[in-house]
């Protein structure tokens, strides 16, 4: 693999970010890296030493796009070397050198969607998927940020993502909240940021913060871990304060149940195990709210997997950048672990759900007991009766 050479003299920004923390070459990151387990030539430790010795252009293009940016290496590292941030910076550098050669997966669909939503004068008609019986409004105290949900079922036909959105609105309506779902909403830009297209990310961030601030709402809730990590942690770095409190749906449900505004009356008799989405867990440090919701639902029996919370294992695809032969074996390993604990794998991110469903829909590597992938908000809605 030919190394990637930015023009000479350009400051090695990626190396500067990497060298914020000192790597002691202890190999703990590589021992826990899911990609390393299936492709032994991909090794975060080797990449870091290469960068220390040869600068970040010593990194091969194969390694750059094999990384899931799931953050497990940084979580287990004693000195928290920011490897995912290094990879992101290198992808940004690459983008300016020449167009990224590995198009976003699934035919580049999400990438081009984000670019379209970055356009200025766009009046979308985003509420087609809501259907009747659910109340949403043009304004209100609580914004329900739906991100790319209206467009996912257009291509990912093996699972029904709008179902999560409907469940969220049902739960909020039950708790007396009529969420504002705005047509001015744009894609949160997560894939653009993590695939190195910083320009599109910042445009989307500015367009989104415009209507959020103008809405006068107090809180913004989202059911997607990627949107949550963007709006809560990445937007402020680009556009400053959003003037709204960003919460994930599971945090809102936990709060509503505690405040007695939400009661789960209908038991849901399922044994479930919980998949910590990387963007909600490691990236945003939210491990407990989803578990609290699951415990609050009568009839649900939560059996934890071995690798959970900071050591949770990624669903195999980060920002739709890497989906190939290797990720298939990762997904088999994780789903085998889940199937050994329960018949239902619950997660809190529509994209984990899409990737796992795509795997189950496309000939698993080895036979797997039939496992169902359910979103935690969907489960909560079922318990409302």
């Amino acid at each position: 693999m030919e190394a990637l050479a930015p023009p000479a003299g350009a400051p090695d920004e990626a190396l500067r970010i990497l060298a914020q923390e000192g790597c002691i070459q202890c190999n703990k990151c590589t021992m826990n890296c899911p990609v390393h387990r299936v492709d032994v030539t991909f090794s975060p430790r080797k990449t870091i030493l290469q960068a220390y010795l040869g600068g970040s252009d010593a990194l091969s293009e194969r390694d750059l796009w094999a990384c899931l940016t799931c953050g497990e290496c940084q979580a287990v590292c004693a000195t928290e070397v920011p490897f995912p941030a290094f990879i992101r910076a290198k992808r940004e550098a690459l983008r300016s050198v020449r167009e990224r050669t590995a198009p976003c997966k699934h035919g580049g669909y999400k990438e081009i969607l984000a670019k379209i939503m970055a356009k200025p004068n766009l009046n979308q008609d985003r509420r087609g998927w809501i259907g009747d019986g659910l109340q949403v409004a043009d304004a209100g105290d609580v914004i329900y940020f739906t991100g790319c949900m209206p467009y996912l079922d257009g291509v990912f036909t093996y699972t029904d993502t709008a179902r999560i959105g409907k469940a969220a609105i049902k739960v909020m309506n039950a708790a007396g909240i009529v969420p504002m779902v705005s047509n001015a909403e744009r894609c949160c830009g997560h894939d653009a940021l993590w695939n190195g297209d910083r320009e599109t990310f910042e445009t989307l961030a500015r367009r989104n913060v415009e209507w959020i601030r103008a809405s006068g709402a107090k809180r913004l809730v989202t059911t997607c871990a990627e949107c949550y990590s963007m709006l809560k942690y990445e937007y402020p770095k680009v556009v400053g304060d959003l003037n709204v409190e960003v919460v994930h749906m599971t945090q809102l449900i936990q709060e509503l149940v505690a405040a007695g505004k939400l009661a789960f009356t209908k038991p849901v008799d399922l044994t479930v195990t919980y998949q910590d989405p990387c963007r909600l867990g490691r990236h945003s440090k939210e491990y407990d709210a989803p578990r609290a919701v699951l415990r609050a639902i009568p009839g649900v029996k939560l059996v934890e997997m071995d690798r959970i919370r900071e050591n949770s294992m990624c669903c195999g695809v980060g920002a739709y950048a890497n989906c190939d032969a290797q990720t298939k074996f990762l997904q088999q390993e994780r789903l085998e672990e889940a199937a050994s604990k329960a018949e239902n794998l619950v997660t809190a991110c529509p994209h984990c759900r899409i990737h796992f469903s795509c795997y189950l829909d496309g000939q698993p590597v080895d036979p797997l007991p039939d496992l169902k992938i359910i979103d935690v908000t969907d489960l909560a809605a079922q318990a409302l009766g």
Partner: protein
Amino acid sequence: MTGGTRKIGVFICHCGGNISDVVDVNAVREFAAQQDEVVASTDFRFMCSNQGQARLQETIKEKGLDGVVVACCTPKMYEDMFRGSAKEAGMNPYLLEIANVREQCAYAHRHEPEQATEKAKALVAAQVAKVRNLRPLDVKTAPIHDGVAVIGAGIAGIHAALLLGNAGHKVTLIEKSPTIGGNMARFDKTFPTLDCAMCTLSPKMNDVFNHPNVDLMTYAEVKDAVRAPGRFTLTVVQKPRYVTDACIGCNRCTEACPVSGPKSPIKVESEWNLGLSPRKAIYLPFSQALPQQWTLDADHCYYFQRNHTCGICAKVCPADAIDFTQRPEEVQVEVGAVVVATGYRPFDASQIPQYGFGKYADVYHGLQVERLLSSTGPTNGKLLKKDGTPPQSVGIIHCVGSRDEKYRSYCSRVCCMASLKYAHLIRERTGARVYNFYMDMRANGKGYEEFYQRVASEQVGFVRGKPTRVTDQATAPEEEGKLTIVVEDTLAGVVLRVPVDMVVLSTAMDPEDVDGLLASLKLDKSPDGFVKEYHLKINPTETAVKGIFVAGCAQSPKDITDTIAQAGAAAMSASMFLGSGSMTLNPLVAEVNPDLCRACTRCSEVCEFDAVRVDPEALVAIVDETSCEGCGKCTVVCPTGAITVRQFTKTQIAASIDALAPKAVAP
């Protein structure tokens, strides 16, 4: 070499004014010259002329071009030619693209020259963008196996096999029934010449039977076929005859065989005579059958059906040629080409109950009448009713099953002439009154109309109308004991009831039942059930599968004249195909990047040509480049972009879309 600096040449054709009168070729040339990585941009009056080609080749050599865009007429005209001459000049032909500035710009927008020029620039820019992303393709070829198989030994198969054999090819002629000859051998006479069918057919049968280059396999059926580059491997089941080559043809076994005897519980009708007469278990279909070898039908033989209680044939056989131990045997036949000549079988008239076929004794279908009139037939050529007496009057009904939405929508083309032939022969031999009930008289071959006029002159009663039913219920004395044909004479405008002694149904032609064979050869059927040809008009003898040809009634109903013509054409095409020695594989097919493939089988699920399969061991999709047609359906359903069609990848198409986009938008 994408991404590196390419050396692209743009050549704009004036097309002798067709283009240059509307499109400002100088502006387009200047525009092209400024495009990235374009190193040569010229225009010429006739790019397709020899000088045009020479100019193209010189520039390629001179500038070392590794990409060419020719702005001229539709690629359908000269794309292959331009690619050929680029190849001669040493450039990979698949780095050449055509910008269709004639049909899509000069012609379509004659009244808006500036817009036509703008659009021409955009089309050139799009093709240059695509060429920048193309990579050279090497055209793989596969050696073609030298042999050819002809399936079906009717007149079509025999004629094709003879021509191919004479052309020096090694032919394997495979026939399902015990003898070659097909349906034609059953005929008595042929129209319009009234030659005796066997007199014209048997010389060809003998030639093919004794032809040094033709290996004949009779009583053998093709069970399966596997296709590989330049080669077909046919699995042929040689059914056991239980009679060895020692057979001297003395017929003693047939005489001794008790089957179909008066008191014999096992009875079987002769397929050859289409149920008009019984036959023994061990038999020769007809006297001039080739090979002259008896066949024992184990399904109707005491030895096999009543655990060895009989063996009379073995005992009486002077040449000790009976061998009960023979078993079916599978033979692998490897050939480079296949000619499908499986012929037709008569439409089952019992499907039309109103005509009483199978209900009334003296209702026959056309082929049965051929047997009755044939000297080798059950009645030695004398037209007799079931009760053995000659008929006084015969009614012949045309289009039975043909041209009918409920049965066969097509016209079977031959039955009008066949019906006229029967009318003539019956009149000539028995003097019986003959009526022909027809809708339209289709006598459109050479000498056909003249034959029709001649038969009309022999007092044959022609009634233009399609009979509604045949009944034995008499409503008048003259109908007693007769079969009455009820018909509206559309010329006279009156309903007639015509009592006759015998009714002949001119049944439609059905394709022979070869679904299994077609499936294994990946051949399609056209809606009427016959084998689908490559192109109905200009290529009726080839099929969609390279190396497979079709001839005779297998492709659609036709008379012997057309069958011979088509068999000759099929043989010629097959011979040319084999003669070329190797077949070039279409390079513009799918390919898989193993690193990206998730073995999720979505590509094979949508592939209509069974051209991509997932290897369960290696967990990767593998494309069979000979079956892949390059349609690209798989590339859309592939989640990882692992499978792409060469020269139509996402990067290449996206690049041309960007180049075509309106300029107002920054790229």
